């Protein structure tokens, strides 16, 4: 189904149309990413803004709930990028950039469980080099080793 842009615009919901009349879409108007002052012509309606005269903060013109409504509706029509920058993320973006907790990514386990593999490795290595370790501690062991080697049976 291919629509002309005029036909497509006629499908724009009133909620979004109303918003775009008050706050024109992005490339035609600029909006600050950070909270600014109420006299700023580029103030973002989704963010709180300061009244420089009184020094008081004014809440966002569109609450988080209303901004989420607008975003989700705009996303269904593929025009979510035209809205002013939002203070929160949605859908895939929200999931991908999420700061996961360590425990969710990998289980902590008990201390012995965490150290078990290293422990086995150390033990394996010690068993492999057992003769050298004993010789270092007790030099007379060298004789015993030589004796054992002499007694060793070979096929020839």
């Amino acid at each position, binding site marked *: 189904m291919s629509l002309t842009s005029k036909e497509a615009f*006629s499908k724009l919901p009133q*909620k979004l149309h*109303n918003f*775009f*009349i*008050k706050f024109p879409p992005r490339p035609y108007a600029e909006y600050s990413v950070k909270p600014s002052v109420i006299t700023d012509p580029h103030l973002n309606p989704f963010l709180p803004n300061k009244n420089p005269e009184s020094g008081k903060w004014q809440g966002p013109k569109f609450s988080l709930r209303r901004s989420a409504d607008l975003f989700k509706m705009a996303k*269904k*029509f593929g*025009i979510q990028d035209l809205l002013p920058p939002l203070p929160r993320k949605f859908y895939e973006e929200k999931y991908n950039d999420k700061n996961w907790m360590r425990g969710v990514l990998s289980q902590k386990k008990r201390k012995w469980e965490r150290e078990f593999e290293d422990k086995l490795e150390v033990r394996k290595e010690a068993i492999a080099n057992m003769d050298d370790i004993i010789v270092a501690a007790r030099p007379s062991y060298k004789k015993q080793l030589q004796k054992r080697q002499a007694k060793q049976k070979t096929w020839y």
Partner: protein
Amino acid sequence: MSWHTAGNRFAVEVSNPRITKTVYDKIMRANKLPLQGEAPGVRIAKRDQQSEFEKGIVTGDLVYVNAGEHKGTISTVISYTASTNTLYLSNVTQKSIIPGHLKPESFPSHLIERPKPVPFNQVKLAGKEKDENGKINYIVAEDFEFKEKYFDERYQRWLPRRVAKHHNEIEIPWPQPELLKDDRYSTQENIALEKSYEVQTIARPPIPREALAEFRNPYSKHKKRVFSELQVRRVNAPKMPLSIEQKIYLAKNEGKEKKVYQPLSEEIKEFIGSKMADHISKIDNPALLSHLDALSNSKIPDFEKTLANSESKSENST
């Protein structure tokens, strides 16, 4: 110990009501007219007791005594005692002595004849029959059983038909109940049925409609249709005075023009439309497309307000 104190030891303490009662009961028991003979057999528990109609032999029935001292007697039933399951019969009596102080003066002797209780299992139901010669024959039913119920006009209650066992064609009718006679304390039937009161109902007002004006004031001030100035002032809340801050704010914004929105330009419309068209052309799910249609048709009241406040409209109106 004097005789006086020794005597007190055995004396009944009359001031104690409990002792007084037991002593009184003892005296009464000793001097009472003996019951109409102690009933033979054991007493029956209340839950196991049956009425005379449940048993099948009622007052006025003819019965035949088939065991005991009075075997062979045919007699009518005076009463049935459920607690001992015994009957008092008119013919079966015993002699007993009345104590001197209880004997009525009219009685010629201390020895009187009084009915003797007969156990229920020692009697059989009997009936009278006249033959062709006018001779009265008695028939004794070995046993009887109950059949279907009917409404007995004489007793004014539902009763089962009583028939001889194995001879169901022989019905033993219930006896004629003793008719109650009017005495000086009874109320006449027409007086008892006379309606001496009237049911009160809210459907009928207690006061006639014509008399209501006498009770109510039609010129009451509460019935006036027009409010006085004071009443109007009392009903309506006063207008709240403005605070100093509010006054300052209003004074500041007095000269400022109200913000007027500009409708979307054709360029912007084209831009948004092209983006939407691109997106919608990629959708092939019919359910999602119908959902988008529904969203497009959704309306909000604020949109009309915004349009009314936009520049093009205001230009048109001026």
